[in-house]
């Protein structure tokens, strides 16, 4: 725990909760104070998280900023936090996204504003908690704790069909994560009564058990990613959630599933994951093409972006299960890119929704003439989402297709077609909304004001920063990814070793 002993990760987790408690004390009437308090809290959390970025030591794969205290000693559960190359970027993403969510819902949330901001702050602490925890129980606690605020965000402040979407979201994730709970407990006993992830990673487990546990964890993570068959909750949740809700959902929540794969499924069950890669690659490729093609037929703006994130996350899982350094690093970077780009897309859709209160694409047309600045910002996000070079999308997608192609040629080629269809639906969306004759409904729209520009500015900066100088971000991952891949690919050597000494004994 460097930085002269200051427990930075714990403050990151508990400061938002303290902020939420502070909000509780403020009376419901002066909403302005509530908004400013939550903004200040989220900004302070972001500022505290910046030293993570600067102080991070990129040359080691070991966990940094670690903290460890006993939590439930009798069951050997301890409160241990720490981040490495893989999780650091997500922590920063969550802190940044929360600020933007507070900004975007400044005057779009009218009812129950106090509960809204409390839920967002609790969301933030749960998100950071998931990415920092090194103890399975702590991870699971944050993983599930995030369900409550998200359920309320979608359910209370959502659109017309919000209740169905909220319940669907909740049950989908809950069933998956409960199966994971069983997996965690079985792993606990298998590895000699410990929940500590680093310790669990050193042990090897019998092959058959690895398969079972991999599928238990798959249930939880695949729902979150969302991978192909279990993705139908995402469009509903996105369409019905308020802007801030869908931004958090798209930018950070979805990443937890893929992060789970990288942090848990791969290192803990190397042989099983290697055996399962063909299945996973097929699912990812289906997700990419399925998501992209379905976007062509969408009429609702947010639903289209939701399906596009199904396709983008298909790329991420492809990168992860390519099991080579380009694919993995591409996957992780693509998670950040997707967070930034889809987050920005939802922010901008939120802005236009506040003005027109309609999500049907057919109601739009010719917005570019009314709102030129907004149109150009939206164009940048569309280009990043297509993966145009010099934007962040390209770096991630190229590395993933490279890694995917190396792992399995068919996967690489089919994934590359996703890029074409991607360009298709995004440009078609952009044309129907921004170009052509101005639709009466969107005739006299006011262009975006300063607050909204400030909300989108960090996204633009990130898009071009990662696009032009990605090493600033890729640099974090090299060591951790190398270590992870050694562990995943070394699994078999270990078994070979075991087999060898059995032979010696027989001989």
């Amino acid at each position, binding site marked *: 725990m460097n930085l002269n002993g200051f427990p930075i990760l714990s403050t990151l987790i508990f400061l938002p909760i303290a902020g939420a408690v502070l909000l509780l004390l403020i009376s*419901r009437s002066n909403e302005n104070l509530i908004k400013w308090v939550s903004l200040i809290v989220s900004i302070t959390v972001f500022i505290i998280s910046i030293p993570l970025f600067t102080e991070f030591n990129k040359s080691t794969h070991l966990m940094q900023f670690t903290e460890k205290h*006993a*939590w*439930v*000693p*009798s*069951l050997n559960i301890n409160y241990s936090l720490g981040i490495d190359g893989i999780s650091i970027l997500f922590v920063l993403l969550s802190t940044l996204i929360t600020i933007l969510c507070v900004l975007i819902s400044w005057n779009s949330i009218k009812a*129950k504003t106090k*509960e809204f901001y409390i839920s967002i702050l609790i969301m933030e602490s749960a998100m950071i908690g998931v990415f920092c925890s090194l103890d399975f*129980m702590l991870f*699971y*606690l*944050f*993983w*599930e*704790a995030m*369900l*409550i605020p998200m*359920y*309320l965000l979608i*359910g*209370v402040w959502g659109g017309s069909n*919000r*209740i169905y979407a*909220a*319940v669907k979201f*909740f*049950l989908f994730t*809950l*069933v998956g994560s*409960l*199966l994971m*709970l*069983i997996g965690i*407990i*079985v792993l*606990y*006993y298998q590895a000699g009564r410990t929940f500590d992830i680093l310790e669990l990673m050193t042990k090897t487990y019998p092959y058959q058990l690895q398969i079972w546990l991999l599928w238990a964890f798959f249930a939880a993570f695949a729902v979150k990613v969302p991978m192909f068959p279990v993705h139908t909750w995402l469009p509903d949740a996105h369409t019905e959630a308020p802007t801030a809700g869908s931004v958090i959902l798209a930018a950070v929540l979805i990443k937890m599933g893929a992060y789970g794969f990288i942090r848990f499924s791969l290192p803990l069950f190397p042989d099983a994951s290697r055996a399962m890669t063909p299945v996973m690659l097929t699912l990812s490729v289906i997700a990419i093409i399925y998501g992209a093609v379905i976007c062509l037929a969408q009429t609702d703006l947010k639903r289209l972006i939701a399906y596009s994130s199904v396709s983008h996350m298909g790329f991420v899982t492809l990168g992860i299960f390519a099991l080579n350094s380009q694919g993995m690093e591409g996957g992780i970077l693509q998670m950040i890119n997707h967070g930034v780009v889809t987050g920005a897309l939802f922010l901008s859709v939120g802005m236009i929704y506040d003005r027109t209160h309609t999500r049907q694409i057919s109601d739009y047309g010719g917005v570019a003439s009314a709102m030129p600045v907004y149109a150009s910002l939206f164009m940048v996000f569309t280009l990043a989402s297509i993966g145009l070079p010099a934007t962040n999308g390209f770096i991630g997608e190229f590395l993933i297709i490279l890694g995917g192609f190396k792992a399995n040629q068919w996967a690489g080629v089919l994934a590359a077609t996703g890029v074409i269809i991607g360009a298709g639906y995004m440009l078609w969306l952009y044309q129907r909304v921004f170009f052509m004759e101005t639709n009466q409904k969107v005739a006299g729209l006011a262009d975006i004001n300063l607050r909204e520009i400030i909300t989108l500015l960090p996204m633009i900066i990130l898009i071009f920063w990662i696009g032009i100088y990605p090493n600033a971000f890729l640099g974090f991952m090299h060591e951790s990814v190398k270590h992870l891949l050694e562990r995943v690919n070394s699994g078999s050597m270990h078994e070979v070793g075991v087999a060898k000494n059995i032979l010696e004994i027989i001989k």
Partner: protein
Amino acid sequence: MTNLTGFSMPDLGPVMPEIVMTCLALLILLADLVIKRKETIAFLSIVSVAAVTYLLVGSTGITFNGMFIADNYSLFFKLIFMLNVVLTVLISVKYIAIEKVNFGEYYSLILLSTLGMMLMASAGDLITLYLGLELMALSTYVLAGFLRHDIKSNEAAMKYFLLGAFASAFLLYGTSLIYGLTGTTDLKAISSYISVNGLSGNPVLTLSMTMFAVAFSFKIAAVPFHMWAPDVYEGSPTSITAFMSVGPKAAGFAVLGRVFMTAFGAARIEWTGILIPIAILTMAVGNIAAISQINIKRMLAYSSIAHAGYVLLGIIAGTSEGTASVLNYLFIYAFMNIGAFAVVIMLRSEGFKGDDISDYEGLAKTHPLAAALMLVFMFSLTGIPPTAGFMGKFYIFMSAISAGYTWLAVIAVIFSAISAYFYLRIVMYMYMKEPKAAVQLSVSPGIALALTITVIAVLVIGVLPSKVINVARIAARF
């Protein structure tokens, strides 16, 4: 006067709390004649419970040559019973005034029922067990029918009485069989007899174990002996429903644990064979039937049946870790369940029943604090992490898996996912719907205190469960 000299006064130390409890219960009955304000009687009963708790901590040991055991295991259960009484009294002070049954006997009956439970918890012998059980049962029957002028309450008492008596008949039949087989009713003696003579396959033993299983399943409202629970929970006054959903259920588990672990310890495989189908059925019926309920008390009844299913998992594990998880779960269950019922009671005001789920629509808008409390309890009952409910369930699953019942844990997990649906429905009604009528809450200092205790407990245990788990682990080693 043959060998009167042989008679020696048994050591009353360990029994002291029970004796003091009896005297205080009767004292309160008398005080009711003198004191007009019922609140003072409530206060008196809380003071007496505090006194008994104070005594409890010191008194351990075995007396009445083995018929009464006051060890850590029974102490833990008695703590749960004390907690149950205090919270019930707090929430019912204003409630029974509204229901116009504001009599002193209410409190003394609660104390007597708790006395019965304490006896059951420390029963080292089937006879003490039967006595404790009947004492608890009888006073609870009366409490169930306390609303004399309400048909539902009478009907609830009648059903509870008849079926209770029917079940205790089975208990007695079992006792007589085991007595005939082993020649003794002392649990330790029975277990040594069984292990010495190796009766594990013996049909009579299996028959008696079945009888015991039936009687205890009735008490903890496990399926297929749960039919009484929804009607009785709905019919009886809500404070008593809260009392019944925690007290007798915990006592049932105390006895179930004690009898099956000590007496039939050797024949573990057989009685797990009985309990596993019961546990699965209980979780299934409890969770599935709750989904289509419209009355909140009935829904909470089914939810408490489902929770009995989860706790059964701990018993089935059979290890001391299993028993510790049962103790831990029941302790947490007491808080969240009474908390939920407290909110239901708050909704009951002059001329407004507040029983239907639709009465909760828009509660978040009219009474945000009450809605927030109910939200915490609902999520805790579902078992979502930051709340204590999760810690309870998690520890149960751990003990079940460590005993090799992973498949049972998976089934339990699936059913608890189903349970999320009807708990969420309440949260959905409160937060996501517009209020129909202006709901008036009847808040009293008692209920406010009870709610604060329960919500703090649910959140604190959720985040820092180690204290409770350690105590439970110590208590489980009997």
